[in-house]
């Protein structure tokens, strides 16, 4: 027998989670120098109605590029990227969120979040994909955050 309250709460719930750093992902290295990207200080906030419908989400991450080996051309300096909820779609395990990057974000990165339940919280499987480059300079970083109720 599951323990559960008799009614749904009437207020929205905000979930919050952080991740100190993602896995480091290499890019370049063929006709360009070899670089790597690590997303640090990932901070995610998701607000949802009692039904689980997502009504808001913000994500912030620090892009940290590095040279792999040696290269005369420096990587981009560390930059903070911000994302806000663009759309949410139902999946059989929860919700797939599409977040829009802020205009000031550099490089340009698309962010999707596959949201599923995790105990009393949420699991956010994130996919950051650079969109302003193709081929060897494009990268994809896939960190997973656990979010807990924040209110």
């Amino acid at each position, binding site marked *: *027998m*599951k*323990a*559960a*309250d*008799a*009614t*749904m*709460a*009437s207020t929205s*719930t905000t979930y919050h989670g952080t991740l100190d750093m993602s896995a480091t992902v290499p890019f370049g290295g063929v006709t360009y120098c070899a670089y790597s990207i690590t997303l640090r200080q990932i901070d995610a906030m998701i607000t*949802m109605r*009692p*039904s*689980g*419908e*997502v009504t808001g989400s913000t994500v912030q991450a620090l892009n940290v590029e590095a040279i792999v080996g040696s290269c005369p051309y420096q990587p981009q300096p560390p930059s903070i990227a911000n994302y806000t909820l663009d759309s*949410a*779609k*139902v*999946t*059989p*395990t*929860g*919700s*797939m969120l599409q977040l829009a990057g802020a205009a000031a974000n550099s490089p340009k990165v698309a962010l999707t979040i*596959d*949201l*599923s*339940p*995790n105990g*009393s*919280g*949420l*699991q956010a*499987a994130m996919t950051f994909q650079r969109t302003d480059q193709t081929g060897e300079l494009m990268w994809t970083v896939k960190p997973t955050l656990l979010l807990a109720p924040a209110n």
Partner: protein
Amino acid sequence: MMFLAATLAAVTSFGSNPGALDMYEYVPAGLPSGRPLVVVLHGCTQTASAMESAGWNALADQYGFAVLYPQQRSANQALSCFTWYGPTDIARTGGEAESIIQMVDTEIASHGSDTHRVYVTGLSAGAAFTAVMLAAYPDRFEAGSIMAGLPYKCATDLTSASSCQQMSASTQKTPQQWGDLVRGAFAWNGAYPRVQIWQGTSDYTVAPANATELVKQWTDVWGTDQTADATDTISTATRTQYMAGSTVAVELYSVMGMGHAIAIGADPDGACPATSGAYFSDEKICSTTRAAAFFGLTDGSGPGPGSGSGSGSGSDPAPDGSNPDSPDGGGCNTAGDPGFLALVFVGGLARRWRHAAVVRPRTRGLLAGRAERRR
């Protein structure tokens, strides 16, 4: 309770509720006993009321049946998904599937719903759970319609659930492997529920390969092959039927270009009661009326006059899968409606055939008998 339009009524007491779900119903005014029951399951992040857009309530008014809307609780599952990948929840006892059957039993006890005309449908996670109900309770459901769903027991945890949505080659199984999962859910020698499947070809959430796997699973359960017996095109959809004897055991609608949604819209066969809403896509074909037709709900007359008293007790079936509770339509007030009297007679006859069926081995003869009963 929140989130519900006035048309749905909450039912707060319906058993031990091991899955911790909520129950809502739509029962047309004056509905006599002995009428069918349709169970409608919502998707993740949705509520029962979201599924009202499908138009089942309007069909219930027109053709005379009750509609049951189970609802997931956020305290139970943060994203309000029916837990189609949870070993306890998809088992016959102890979880969400049992809670839904308790709701069905409550409808039977309260409104005299016909124990042998209970159907289930749903979207996405609700569709996956439709497969759960058909597999765990083949003795309780006559048919189901799975809309953007997944095979029964494809996943038993969240990780495998994500893999199932994509249904890559490594996740796919043989028909017998899929069928064995259903047969392992409950020892059942009777005829299995008929299954209708809806799938958008551009569904990137639940990969279209899931529909193929569902066809494998349920044709195998029915003891028939995976070679289509009939194929036709209706508006934007291709309909493929798989026969067991003269019965359409499994039917697949593959809707060209549709994403993760329920197909609605002006249907060549008639008006569609559905209204626009999130995850309802105008594809000029109406899944609601076609599911109702597949269930046999649109074949006969409406509910007819008279209220009658409840005729079903809602008791659990006997351990061997047979159901000792066979009211044979008793308690209905037919009030001089010969058409309704005929329906009651046929319904009673059908029940007797079913009782014969459950003690017979699963053979082609049984399938043929089931087909005869339906037509």
